[in-house]
Every structure is written in C-alpha cells, then in structure tokens.
C-alpha cells in the first residue's frame, strides 16, 4: 500500500478539524505506542490508537474515517493519562467520532434497538451510547 505525501497532507482538513474539536496537537505525538499498549479495546480495532495519530499527522482521511477505531473506543481515558507527551488521545477519538456524527453519519440507529432492550438497559448506558454514537 502506498500513498503520495503532498505538502498539503501535513495540513490536512481532517487534522485541522480534529485539532479544533479536541484542542489537542497531533504533532506532539512521537509515536511511542503507549496509548495502543494500554487500550483495552485495541484488540478489536483495525487501526490502533497510535496509528490513528500517525494517520492524522499525514492526513489519511479515508483510512481514519473508515476505521472502526473511534467506535470501539470506550472513552476509558487510559491513553490520555499515560501518554508521555500529555496528549489526551481520548479527545482525539471523540473528535473523530464527531467528524462523522456532525455529518449525521450515526454509528448506531436508535430505532434499531428493540423496545425490551430499551426498557431493560440502564439509562446511563443508553444515554452515553447515544451521546457517543449518534448525532
């Protein structure tokens, strides 16, 4: 797999958007991998968190928005608290989710959840799932 790196890729729209939404600086990342190492969801991600950071640095928008990574993220914030550069990676994930959600590309459809499940599931789970996965 190859991509052509153009100057504008270092200043990509997706990176700028993510930085604006999250308030984080992706270039602070020096690719140590600690976020990926401690992430409890990494085993199920197609792109691990440190790769997400790299993709943002070089503007690989399709790979970013096509990955399941931000949706498998559980916002546990272990990545944020262990990062040696103090980057809040969890905010990056949130911003990536919002990059889709703000275009109304929801990850889960509320209508698709059967009524008994809605009844049984605690509000805390429902509301936080809707917050993270729907617009």
């Amino acid at each position, binding site marked *: 797999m190859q991509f052509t790196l153009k100057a504008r890729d270092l200043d990509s729209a997706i990176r700028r958007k993510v930085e604006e939404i999250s308030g984080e600086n992706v270039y602070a990342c*020096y690719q140590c991998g600690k976020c*990926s190492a401690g992430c409890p969801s990494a085993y199920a991600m197609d792109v691990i968190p440190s790769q997400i950071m790299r993709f943002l640095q070089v503007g690989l928008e399709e790979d970013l928005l096509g990955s399941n990574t931000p949706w498998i993220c559980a916002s546990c914030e272990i990545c944020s608290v262990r990062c040696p550069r103090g980057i809040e990676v969890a905010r990056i994930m949130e911003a990536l989710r919002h990059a889709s959600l703000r275009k109304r590309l929801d990850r889960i459809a509320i209508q698709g959840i059967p009524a008994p499940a809605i009844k049984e599931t605690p509000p805390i789970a429902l509301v936080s799932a809707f917050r993270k996965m729907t617009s």
Partner: protein
Amino acid sequence: MTAPSTCVFICRCDAAGVDAQSAAALAEDVSAAFPDAAAHVVESGCSPRGIGGIVESARSLGCARVLVASCAPGLHMTAFRGMLANAGTAECLVVNPFPDGAGPAQRKKAFEAVRDAMGKLAPCAEPRREKPVPRALVVGGGVAGIQASLDIANAGYKVTLVEKESSIGGHMLQLSEVFPTLDCPQCIMTPKMVEVAQHDNIDLRACSEVEFIEGEAGKFRAVIRRKAAFIDWAKCTGCGECSAACPVEIYSDWDRGTARKKATSRPFAQAVPNKFRITKNGVSPCRAACPAACNAHGYVAFASQGKWAEAYSLITERIPFPGIVGRVCPHPCEDACHRRGVDQAVSICVLKRFVADRMRGREPLPVPAPDHGKKVAVVGAGPAGLTAALKLKLKGYKVCVFEASDRPGGMLVWGIPSYRLPRDVVRDELALPAKLGVEMHFNRRLGPDISVDGLRREFDAVVLALGAGKSWKLGIEGENLGGVTGAVEFLARVNRGEVASVRGRVLVIGGGNTAFDAARSAIRLGAENVTIAYRRSIEEMPANPGEVEGAGAEGVKIVFLATPLRILGDGKAGAVEFLRNELGPPDKTGRRRPVAVQGSEFRIEADLVVSAIGQAPDAPFLDNDARFAFRKTGALDVDMVTLQTGVKGVFAAGDVVSGPDTVVGAIASGMYVAESVDLFLTGADPSFGREPPALNVVEKPDLRAARAGERAKAAEKAPGARRGDFTEFDLGITEEQAIAEARRCLNCAGCCECMNCVKACEPKAVDHAMQDRFEEVEAGAVVLATGYDLYPVAKIEEYAPDPDVIDGLQFERLLCPSGPTDGRVLRPSDGKEPKDVVLVACAGSRDPEHHKPYCSRVCCLYSTKLAMLYRHAVHGGKVHYFYIDVRTDGKMYEEFYQRAQQEEGVNYVKGKVSKIYRVGDRLRVLGADLLAGKSVSVDADMVVLAMAMVPNQAGIDLGRKLGIAMNEHGFMTEQHGLLMPLESSRPGFFFAGTCQGPKDIPECVAHASGTAGRVLSFFGRKSRPAEVKKEPASAVAGQGS
C-alpha cells in the same frame, strides 16, 4: 596628561543590534559622568582588528582598569581579560549595556549598567592575580573523577580525590560487562584505581565528603569530613574476618537489593582502598528501651545465625540470669521494636529464654578480676542483690550475701509461681554467684541475726536489697476476718509447700502480675471459682501482656471497674462488697482515675480474699532506725543518683527503693548500685557522670532488607489440663523457630555493637568509638565528578512495585560474575532462572508529562547489551525489548545493535509498555508493536526497566551548598552550553562526567580528560606582573590601526 584611571570601550556592530548613535551617546554619557575615564566606541570589538585596537589603546593609554561594554559578556570576558592581561592591564570587566536592544529609550539604562560595572572595578594597587594553588580538589571517585585525577596528577600537580563511599570506582564497577566492547569493567578499571591509590601526587580520601568550600578560583579552602568507618584503615589489612564474624545482614546499596551485606563490609573484592567499613545508623530502639541496657539487637543478631554461645555471653554482660528474665519480663524492648510497623515485634524475650535454655549446663563462666581485698556485704539474695553481688565480684571485690530465707531468689522463688518460673531454672542460674566465689549465707535476717552497723564495721560497703515483700493493706472494714490475706504472703506459703489445696471461692483484688500469680496458683490448687477484681479497665492493667488471656483460658474470671468497699463475714470472710467505677481523667501515672458510681454496690462471694494492690518493703527494724527514711509508698528513701542511704557506705537497690518493679528493673538497679559502690570504694564521687549516655535511637528503619515471616508461636500445655499442675505451661520455641524469628529482625541500627568483629580482628583495627574528623585542604580548582543514580522504579506506578520488575543496575548485579549470584541469572522473587525477559526502554525518560523529559542517552545501548548478556547467560532464554527509538550515537554502537538483532536473537519491538502486572508467577506486559500495527501482550518471568539517569543526590546537595548552577533536574549547568561544557559559571569549579548530563563511559573519560586540560591550563596561567607601566597617552586607537 595623566593616564586615565579607567578605559571604557563601547563595542558596536550590526550583528549585535547596536547602532552607532546609541554607542556614541553612551560614550558621551560616560565621559560626562567620569571625567577621568576615557570612553571610546569600538567597531566589532571581538574581531581581531577590534580587539587588537582595544589592547593597543589600553597599553598606550597606560590604563590599568578596562571596562568593555559588549554583547555576550560571559563568552567575551575570558577573551578580553586574557588579552588585556598579557598587555599589562590589571583589571578588566565586561558588561552588556544593551541587553534589550539599543536605542534612545535604552540610553539611560545603558549608562546605568556601565556606571554600576565601573563601581565594581576594584582600585588597582596590588597584583590581582596570583598563581593558583597547584592542587585540584576532585569530588567523586567514579570513572570521570579517576580520569581527571590521573591526568592532573600526571602533569605534576597535586590532587585530593574525595569519595563518599569506602571505595572508588563508582557505578562502573557494578556493571557486568560494558558496551560496545563487552570488556569486564572490574578488569579495566582496577589498574586505574590502583594507580590512583599509589600515585605520589594523589591524596585519596575515601569514606569522606566535602563539608564546605570557601575562597575563590585559584585559592580555595575546603573542609573535608573524614567519616568514621569505625575501622582504622591504617591497621586494616582487608582480610575480611570482621565481616565473617558479623551477625548482622542489611540492605546492600552496592547490590541494589539483589543481596544483603553484613554491617561490616567492603563493597567488592577489588575495592580501592581495600578496607572494611561498619554501617551504623544509631541505636536500635530495643536496646534503648531495656532497663538493664541489654544489647537486645546484638543477641538477636547472634541468634539469627545460631550462635548461641555468643548470644549468651552478650546477654549476660548486662542480664546475668537470662533464663529467668526470658520467662517473666514484660519486654519493653518488644514494645519499641520497629518490626511492629511491619507486622509484629520480634520475640526478643522468648529468644532470650531460648538462648538460656539452649546453653544450660554449658554456660561460659566469666572470670572475675583478681581480688583486691575490699569487701562488700549484700543483704538480700533476690535478683537485685545477686546482680550487685555478681557485678562487684567480677570487679574483684570479696562479696558476702546475707539472705533471710533458706535459699536464693527472693520474689523469684517466694513470689512468682513455678508454672511461670520453674525452680530448676532458678536454682541453676542463681548458682552463678556462688560458682564465682560469692559467699552465700542463708537464714540470716536483718534485725535478729545481723545489723546494718555490724555489717558496716566488718565490710567496706553494704548494699541493702531487701525487696518489697509485704502486701499493702486494703484499708477496708473486715480486713481482719479470717480468710483474708495479702497476695505476697499467700504466694510465699504456696511456694513453701504449705498450701496443699484451696477450696471454695477465691477473690483476688488487684490487677498486676502478683494478682494473676495468686489467681492462677489458686486455680491450680483446686479452687472452684477464682475471680480477679480490678478497679480500672483492661487498658490500664499493669500485668504482663498475655496474663489476662492466659488466666481467662484457665478459668479465671475478671471483673473490671470495681473498688472494694468492705469485706463481709462472720469471723471469716464470706463476701466482698464493691462499688462500680467509671474512668475519669488521668492521674499522675497517666492512667485514668477510677471514679465511683454512687449507688452501684454489688457483692462477690468469697471464702478467700487476697489483696494484691501493692507491696512495700518488710523491714521494721529499719523503720525504727532514724537514719533510714521511708516514702509514703513504703519504699526506702535514698539519693536517687547514687542509691546511697542516709548512712555513709550503705546503699540500697531493687524493690526496696523502687517499690515492686520487674525482675529486669531489679537487675538494672543491682548493676547500677554496684557501680555506685565501686566508685565509692575507689575514692571517686559516686554521683559524678552517672547520667546514661544520650542515645541516637533509630526512628525510621530501612525496610528494604526485611524478611517476611510471622511471629513465632510458642507451644503451650492445654489450659484445661493445668489444674494441679505447677510445671511450666509455656513450652517455648524450637531451634528452627528461634532462628527464623531472629531473622525477622530489621537490624534498624545496622551494626549491633556485639563486638564480634573486635574479637575477630587480628590487627586490632576495629574502633567503635571512632568519630568523624575534619581535614582542611587548599586547592586552586575544584572538579565536581559526583556522578549519577537511576530514577526510582517505584515512581512508575503502572509498572511497579514487584520484586521481579528491576532496573538495569540490579540486572547488572545478577549478571556480574563477581556478583551475588556468581553471574547466574536468578530472579529476585523465587531465585528461579527466568526464561522470558522483557526489557523496557525509556522508563522514566522522554516523558515530560509524568517523569523526566530528556533522553537518558545510554539506555538503548545498555539495554541492548543486557539483552545480549542475558542470552549468553541463559541458554534458550528469550528477550523482548520494547523501545520507542533505538539510539546508537557512538562508535561501534550501530554495529553492536545490529549484531544483537541479527545474531543474538533479541526481539526488538517498537512500542512503549503501558502496564505490567503479576499473573501467578509471571508478569504480564501490555505493550504495542507499532511496526506490526497491533497491541501486544507478553507473559515474562522478569522485566528489566531502563530507568532514566538522574544526578546523584549527594552531588545535588553539594552543588546547592556551593552555589553551583544546576538545571531543574539537578544536572550542573555549564558556563556555556556549546563552547564551555566543562566548567561552571562559578569560577574555579569544573565538571567531569554524568553530573553535567547523561553520558556513556567513553564520553565520561573524554569529558574528564577535557576538564583536566582546562584545569591544567588554569594552573599554568601566567601571574600578573607587579607593576603597571604608564606611558604618555597617544592617539585614540580603535578606528582602524
């Protein structure tokens, strides 16, 4: 025209941002304010032309004092000074008048800067610069300090090398092999260390620290603290017998916890100086708490090694009857024991009993001093009297003991029951005084048989150790009824065999040991119903810990918070009426005072009422003798410093003075009074110098070497089977238990002062009384080579603590062939050989958010080296090395790394480890493999962290004292980061090695040699000529010439 007093050269150029107008304005202002100074503007003063011009002008103007106003004064100072000095200028200062740029707005500030600087120019009269004292003070004996010392010494100058440990060598000597050559550091360094030790020009001061340095560059006066090693190195041959004889094991800093060391030790076999040193942290709290000043720490240390004879000798230096004391003592030593902070106190008392029982029949006998003729009489053969008699006999006195009863022991045989203190033990131990020649006279009572005056005539001194053998009366109605007795009297009758059995209900009033002795004896004698009534609560009860539980197990009932009002009965006792109490505020003993609750009367039925509320001496004849006074408690009044009574030469000791006290208290009193008598009889003042020495008791013990283990439980006879059984119910502990128990000791004080090393040292080099001393050294320059340490593993909470998560230096000790495991890799938790090892790079470094922001430079290489050494040492062992980047910036480093990867099978994984935790007997490592794009989990047997290098704390502390600039991590700051990396901004102070920043060994050596070079050129500078030549002023130079 006379020469100007000062020349001011104002330098300008575009690069520095100083325009011609500003420079000219400044010159104008200076001239106006200082008419006798010459102010000139110079173009590009630092260019060869410019500086040449300045020098020429100064010389031709005959200026002795020069002020140069230029940019970067720090850099330019040396250059200008040097050149001007050669031109005969006495004094030169450089100042930057335009730190924030030049312009009209800065004019005033610029002038003020120059004016202030001119004020600092000293008046020029004497030669300002002497030749520096030709000696360098090098602080720190690691590889850098050694190199710098050798270079300077080989050039013909003197060096004083100060090292805080007892050997030079530093961390390098801890390593197994060094990269990239895999040389053995001990092999390559020891020749250099020996060279240092034998060099004519080097004064090696190991086991020393710099206390302070004053003075200035060229002439420093330093004071060095020569710390006491407690071994005289002039005599020490390095044979190691002291260490072999030492029973104490403590944490080894050298082995970083992978092994323990003895309190008397040498860091490694090739140490230079090759001398031993004793680690003392103060006095263990157990020793300080013992009333008899018994060396509890010492005998426990001996016990930990099964050295029973040595333990016995040490105990009996202060406590002559260990089998007795080890059975009845309330052991204040255990209350003070720091092991309590971990789990429970060490069983110091039970260990004393074990030692005594183990040595019974084979006790080494002390040898008394030769008889010198003086005679002392001791009245009373209880523990106080016998101890005094023994001590005096050992000092060479003739001693006679007069005892009212028919056998020795006092309370030991007439009070304490035999189930607590077997009579054969008492008989055997108390035979000692007679064995040594003390004359024992029984059935001699003071009063009817002997008198104080009679004894005083016959003997040179008398000691009254009469005890307190009379029970206090309850002072209540009905005390005269039949069936009411004092506890002491009751126990005496029991011990004389006069009480075959006790029927009925027994009530004991009181809460001390005597009350329990009476109650538990009554149970054994068949009483169906025994109750103890105490007026306070269980917290205030003075009886030995364990008595309440033991009595309860035997069936004794205890009633708390009850005060007796009256004894009821018809001719003989039938019941006792009590009043309930509550606890009020504390009284002067600190215990809460019982306060009666009105209207709460109740009764306890009893056929035998035993009063155990206190005791007083039983000495009616002394009572009637006006020369002897008694206190309200009934105790004999004596001078509390000398223990002398109102009659000269008559002393008293033990319970007769203190009231009922412990056996160990009586023994301590006996020791003390023997001292008093000895002073008295040798013509000295017995009140002089009697204060106990102030002890530096260890407050915070080092727990790092603590062994795990629960307090030993002694076997006991079943409580239910104790009726009718006066034999000892506490069966004590086994030898295996005793050794394990003694090994629980934390060795708080380090050295226990058992003096075994003194005995073992043939050249008699050991000196426990050694003090630190101070040495003054004059030096022209100081080289700081204080070295590094590693950032602590415990700071990374997601990795540690775990015994098998270690740092690089600990791993080096395990790999080192001369290390604690002889080079076998055995993991700390269980001593097994790890088959899978994970190395984690950048542990604590490159982490600005939580730890150190910098890269520690050497870790990539040393981790690679450790990985290879591990693979060499463990056949088939696997290594996974988690890194962020592999940095190989030195000569042959890249080749070394590639060899590790290609040939040595080290698995390099790019991804920082997030968490390490234990699963069973393995460690789970959560990492990432970024190049494979996945997170990864590895189960390993051991994890080695490449911890960041930090400056040695002792170096930081010294730097602060000396006013050396350091950065926020404690690394010393160079005068100029690029061009002057070898010296501090404080003149005369130079650096060598890692105290300035992390570096590997070749860099340390190069750095140190470079520093030596700087020092040598400093030493070699010309001194200033005595006079300044003055020539008539010539044309103003500077604008081209």
